[in-house]
């Protein structure tokens, strides 16, 4: 394996600066992907073929996952994928302004989301529809953002799920502050302790805010799990445009553990995230998890991936599908029969139909909504502007034009 140590290690007898570090592009890519095929550093519990493989450090974290629990995880993933495809289709029909697909990242999101305890807090980016689902956010409440009727409507405190953050990396610092607060309030240190998880992507790792989030969480020992979904692409830019080094290895430089998990393995994501959250709630945070996955669809519905990546890459990842491996495992192990799979599919179709019905009938926001909630305490200047505009509109109503 190519590694930074090799790139920078001086030849015997030469001074330490004798060989500058300038790896070839091939070396960097080899390093970034070295563990993607099931190497020693990739934590995997369920192979793409559906075989349960031992992971001595993490098996104990999923001891309770019996057939029923695994069927539940399968159902979660099928439902959010079905909802994702429905939303994608609704965008194509002009019912949504844009959609941000999660296709291919179901295991990373359901596995990590189901690892959270009720008292834990989650800070999403903008693709975490699966995590939202695990936090009990009604999927319909996500759609206002994408139909452009609101910027986010759920009760963040009731669901312990922060509003979506679109500016890349901002939420990592917000989560670090929140986790510091959990610690300052003395809510860390035992089994009932609290922890925070923050979601971001491979592209975000280049942002200063993510670096600062690593620094802050480390120096304040914050109970924060950094959950990086490395889906290989930041719109058109591959991971080697963000890093020379496998992303999980960055944690070492900040002084906390980093681990790479098979992001398409829901059982591994559940186990590793549970471990990381336990570390944090007991006061041993922070932890970085790199969930190695793949964005099977476009960045958003406005994107065209055929301009920058080859279809055989997509074909290779299809063989590592996060849902298929669970289905095979359930079927081969006699943990589920055909009627179960049929029922899940029927449930998913009904779920999607409900979203469709809801979206088509979503009311248009009233014009006064423009002015709502800019401030917690009223601003007379804004109030005056609001009244002036509404009275202008009322002029049309009086004239019968509104």
């Amino acid at each position, binding site marked *: 394996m190519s590694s930074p140590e090799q790139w920078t290690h001086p030849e015997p007898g030469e001074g330490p600066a004798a060989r500058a570090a300038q790896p070839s592009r091939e070396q960097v890519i080899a390093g970034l992907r070295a563990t993607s095929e099931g190497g020693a550093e990739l934590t995997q519990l369920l192979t793409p073929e559906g075989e349960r493989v031992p992971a001595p450090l993490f098996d104990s974290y999923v001891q309770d996952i019996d057939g029923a629990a695994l069927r539940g995880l399968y159902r979660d993933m099928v439902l959010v994928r079905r909802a994702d495809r429905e939303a994608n289709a609704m965008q194509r029909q002009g019912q949504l302004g844009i959609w941000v697909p999660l296709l291919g990242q179901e295991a990373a999101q359901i596995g990590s989301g189901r690892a959270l305890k009720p008292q834990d807090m989650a*800070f999403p980016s903008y693709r975490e529809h699966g995590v939202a689902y695990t936090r009990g956010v009604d999927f319909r409440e996500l759609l206002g953002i994408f139909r452009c009727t*609101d*910027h*986010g*409507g759920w*009760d*963040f*405190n009731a669901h312990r799920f*922060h*509003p979506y*953050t679109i*500016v890349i990396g*901002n939420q*990592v*610092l*917000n*989560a*670090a*502050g*929140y*986790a*510091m*607060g*959990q610690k*300052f*309030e*003395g809510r860390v240190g035992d089994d009932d302790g609290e922890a925070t998880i923050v979601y971001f992507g491979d592209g975000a790792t280049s942002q*200063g*805010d993510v670096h*600062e*989030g690593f*620094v*802050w969480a480390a*120096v304040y020992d914050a109970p924060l799990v950094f959950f990086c979904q490395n889906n290989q692409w930041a719109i058109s830019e591959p991971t080697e445009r963000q890093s020379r080094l496998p992303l999980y290895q960055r944690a070492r430089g900040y002084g906390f553990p980093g681990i790479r998990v098979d992001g398409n393995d829901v059982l591994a994501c559940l186990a590793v995230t549970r471990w990381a959250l336990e570390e944090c709630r007991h006061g041993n945070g922070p932890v970085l998890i790199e969930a190695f996955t793949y964005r099977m669809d476009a960045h958003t519905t406005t994107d065209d991936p055929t301009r920058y990546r080859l279809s055989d890459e997509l074909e290779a990842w299809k063989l590592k599908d996060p849902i298929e491996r669970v289905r095979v495992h359930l079927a081969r192990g006699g943990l589920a029969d055909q009627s179960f799979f049929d029922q899940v599919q029927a449930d998913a179709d009904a779920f999607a139909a409900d979203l469709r019905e809801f979206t088509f009938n979503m009311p248009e926001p009233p014009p006064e909504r423009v002015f*709502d*909630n*800019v*401030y*917690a*305490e009223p*601003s*007379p*200047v*804004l109030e005056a502007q609001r009244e002036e505009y509404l009275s202008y509109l009322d002029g049309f109503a009086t004239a019968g034009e509104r």
Partner: protein
Amino acid sequence: MMAAPVKSEMDVRSPVQSLTIGKALNLGLRAAMEADDKVIVLGEDVGKLGGVFRITDGLQKDFGEQRVLDTPLAESGIIGTAVGLAVRGFRPVCEIQFEGFIFPGFDQISSQLAKLHYRSQGRVKVPVVVRVPYGGGIGAVEHHSESPESLFAHIAGLKVVSCSNPADAYWMIQQAISCDDPVLFFEPKRLYHNGQLKSEVDTANPVGPLFASRVLRQGTDATLVAYGPSVKVCLDAATAAAEEGRSLEVIDLRTISPLDLGPVFESVRRTGRLVAVSEASSESSVTSEIAARVQQECFYSLEAPVLRVTGFDTPYPPSKLEEHFLPDLDRVLHAVDRSLGW
């Protein structure tokens, strides 16, 4: 758990004290921290050192390291973590060491601090105060003398205020901390320790509301409006003008966003003349906004155009040149002459 409120000089001090702006801010912060254990202070060097201007002097000693945080050196981190702490239920007070260093935090201020309440349809409150020592006149190197307040006044979701005297400093910082909206709190750094401004502060009786302008000196010939460090310049100009028989009214804006221009309109309707003064560059600034609004509201009362005395539309110059850049008594009186002679 949070530390219990501690004994301090607040317990023994007289309700009326003679204070500088700097000391008033220090005592105001202390009072806010005693009143609410969710109030925390964070910034660079705010702990043991007490801040480079000593505004947080003694707070860490009395309230502990979990309420007065010496942070890593990154302004986006200071603002970004303060947002998260506020979401958790704290009331963070951030110190930006000098206004010229606020820009690494601009993204968090504009994208999160200002917009979370709107984005969440009012469910997420972010009661963060960002204290910003600003303005020139201290003979400093680059990035230590700027006046960027207009940039923040332009961002919906933020409130922006500036104090000009010890009593306001003492009370406005506490009012900003108890406000449920994010407040950018601009402090006139060259006046922090100015003994001339040292004055009696009644720590038992609050000054008026935070988001209100105030007439500091009544007059009949022309109106001067200013905020922060320029208020003293205007008051000095009014005193000098009085010796020549001219009566100038001086209004301290106090709040930059939302603007409270009622007292300005009322004054201009009487005097017919307005000179707006600020150290910030004039282009697209707070003084531009004042001029636009006054011509809209007082069109038929104006005897002369609204004139402005401001910093020039240049970067802040090397400080050997700052006396040319900063509005001073003579430039203000020159503008008054032009207005009266129109």
